[in-house]
């Protein structure tokens, strides 16, 4: 239900002119709610930014999500892919 709550608050913010992006833990839910911009992450419920006390991973996820802010071909629902060490293509 958290995913639905996020989407509904997100919609209220967009109606006030605030540009938003959200993290999704349940793709099935977000795909039905259709918020303007969301990024699904392959982590368990309770772990939207990957791991506790792992700032590098948290920053990777945030950076990938913030990149979606420029997208206006809404609704955008992308997948986050964990970066393998040594690769240069950070976010697909």
């Amino acid at each position, binding site marked *: *239900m*958290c*995913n*639905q*709550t*996020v*989407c*509904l*608050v*997100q*919609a*209220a*913010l*967009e*109606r*006030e*002119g*605030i*540009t*938003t*992006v*959200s*993290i*999704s*833990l*349940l*793709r*099935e*839910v977000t795909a*039905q*709610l*259709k*918020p*303007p911009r969301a990024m699904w992450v*392959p*982590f*368990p*419920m*309770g*772990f*939207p*930014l*990957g*791991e*506790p*006390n792992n*700032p590098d991973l*948290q*920053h990777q996820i*945030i950076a990938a*999500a*913030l990149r979606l*802010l*420029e997208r*206006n071909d*809404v*609704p955008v629902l992308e997948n986050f892919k964990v970066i393998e060490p040594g690769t240069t293509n950070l976010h697909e």
Partner: protein
Amino acid sequence: MATYSDLSLHVRLFLKGYPFSRYAIEPGLCAKLSKPLNQSRVALVTTAGLRTPDQQGFDHSNKKGDSTFREIPTAIASQTLIESHRSYAFDHLGLAADTNLAFPLDRFRELETRGVIGQLNHRHFSFMGSIVGPGKLMEETAPQVARMLREDGVDVAFLTPV
């Protein structure tokens, strides 16, 4: 990884039967970025049920869910935040170890220092997800938060579930 198949049977059946599409957001809703991110004022919104030590906890008894919110000041030390989400559908140990996991205040402070974002707003908002009957959320509390953030001059919001 969280997909329906990873959840307990009880949670899965509930989600399968819940009319999510009834609450689908109107097509085309899109607030375009009005300025570059490095000049934008940013706020965070989480549904992790976080609160400050001096705020009242969320109501766990309301079957429809608690649609209220807590205002989290930017100046707070993130490790003092208290998680009081009622859901049994997730492992609470992650958030107990690091609230940045679902409310990345320290990460966004770092982004502000690095100049990736313009400014972090002076306040952010925390809801407790698990809102099965979202009428009050949609009609009252979410629009109220949106108005407050607009009045703060916020350009961008980053939202995280738990």
